[in-house]
């Protein structure tokens, strides 16, 4: 099987062609760097995305503080992760890089603050 995709690893947006059978990737072409190759392979086997959102802050300058997953999580867990993050509230002060959620939904990925508040 052949699949065309646009790489999202960087703003360049290379057009990739992936040849695969089931979940076995035979070849990746069209990429201009190693990250493109890696993106195409995970996209076929287990698509992942990094998630950014906000969580509530109690007693902070702003009502919410921005957060991100410290690494990519399975794409099909995005909405579940959002529902969970919308129940989370942290107490001010929050520092940049502070772990807000450990091991998000059993993915092994932490959620960290991306700003101070």
């Amino acid at each position, binding site marked *: 099987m052949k699949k065309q*995709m*646009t*790489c*999202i*690893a*960087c*703003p360049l*947006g290379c057009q990739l062609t992936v040849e695969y059978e089931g979940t076995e990737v035979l070849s990746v072409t069209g990429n201009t760097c190693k990250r493109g190759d890696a993106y195409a392979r995970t996209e076929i086997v287990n698509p992942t*995305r*990094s*998630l*950014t*959102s*906000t969580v*509530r802050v109690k007693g902070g300058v*702003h*009502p*919410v503080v*921005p957060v*991100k997953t410290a690494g990519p999580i399975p*794409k099909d867990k*995005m*909405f579940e992760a*959002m529902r969970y993050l*919308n129940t989370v509230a942290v107490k001010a002060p929050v520092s*940049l890089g502070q772990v807000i959620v450990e091991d998000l939904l059993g993915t092994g990925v932490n959620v960290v603050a*991306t*700003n*101070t508040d």
Partner: protein
Amino acid sequence: MENVQLAVIGGGPAGMAAALRAVECGVKDVVILERAETLGGILEQCIHTGFGLHYFGEELSGPEYAARFIELVEKTDITVKTDTMVTDISPDRVVTAVNKKDGLIKLKAGAVVLAMGCRERPRGALEIAGTRPAGIMTAGTAQRYVNIDGKMPGKNVVILGSGDIGLIMARRMTLEGARVKVVCELMPYSGGLNRNIVQCLNDFNIPLRLSTTVVETHGKERLEGVTIAQVDEKLRPIDSTREYIPCDTLMLSVGLIPENELTKSVGVPLDRVTNGAVVDEMRQTEMPGVFACGNVLHVHDLVDYVTLEAQLAGEGAAKFILNGEAAACYVASQPGNGVRYIVPQRVNVLHEGDVKLYFRVGRVFKNARVVLEIDGETVSSKKKVKVAPGEMEDVVIPADRLARMTENSVVTVRVEE
């Protein structure tokens, strides 16, 4: 009136990088004047990642990118005045500003760096027919509501314009539980990055309709729906394609306008295409001692390029402050076939070192060559799989070629298909 060596107007990525570079170059007395409560500019509300790949070699969110510079600024003696609105800059570089603490401030600056950024094109500029209910806002305003204020502006959303902010907000609203029904784009191509079309629209099955616009808004108190229609090749709506889409929110992502009111008050001439100042390779405007960088100069696609540009402005301002006005012999950089504008618009042939020319094309070109020509000689000819108006391109005039240029030299950048 107080004297300062350098006044930087705006504390976003451009202002911070310019101020920091000026300090590195030996300027002791630098003040940053910032309108908002904190440094960071628009990055503070851009909580998605994708910043810093070029400059830091890693992917950061907006606040993280800003924080790296805020930390550096805090380590220096740079005076930062937040909550401070600059109201006027005179031709002899007297900066007038107001804030709650100092009241009226007047600063006589040895040099000024303009780094005010840009604002979004508002609804009023679009001439959409219909009522004027609540629920119509720019994508950036919506982004602030969601990411800073923690409030959702609506549940059923139509987005007009496929620039990056519109695409990012399509994903953000969807993740927060809203339904984004469609993104309409007037042009036959998207103004946003390909990766954003993939990860913000395709990932969530949000349709992108090209050559389509919003022709009417409906609703009395709150928006109830919009009418969209396809446009012909002259961008005129085709009546037979009108379609009603119920929604309570219309977000506009239809372009950014450099915020140049202060630039005009100084008397700096503007470029009609970029809507920013005309500058040289150090980002000095046509008024010596006044520099401009970042989105106030021309709208950038990546903040990394803003940082690099601002560092040039900071260095240029430092040289002006410490050594006085440099000898100059200017040659215009001329946009050739397919090129909409070039920044810098003029190059000092006495400059030492390479000069990078940034430019944007007027339409999408595939399998094209980007050609830099000086005095009829091809200096470089780079093959490009694709160049698009949404992405900034660049070519370099090498130092040795620049050294051979004269006041009569002709510099052209063009696209060949």
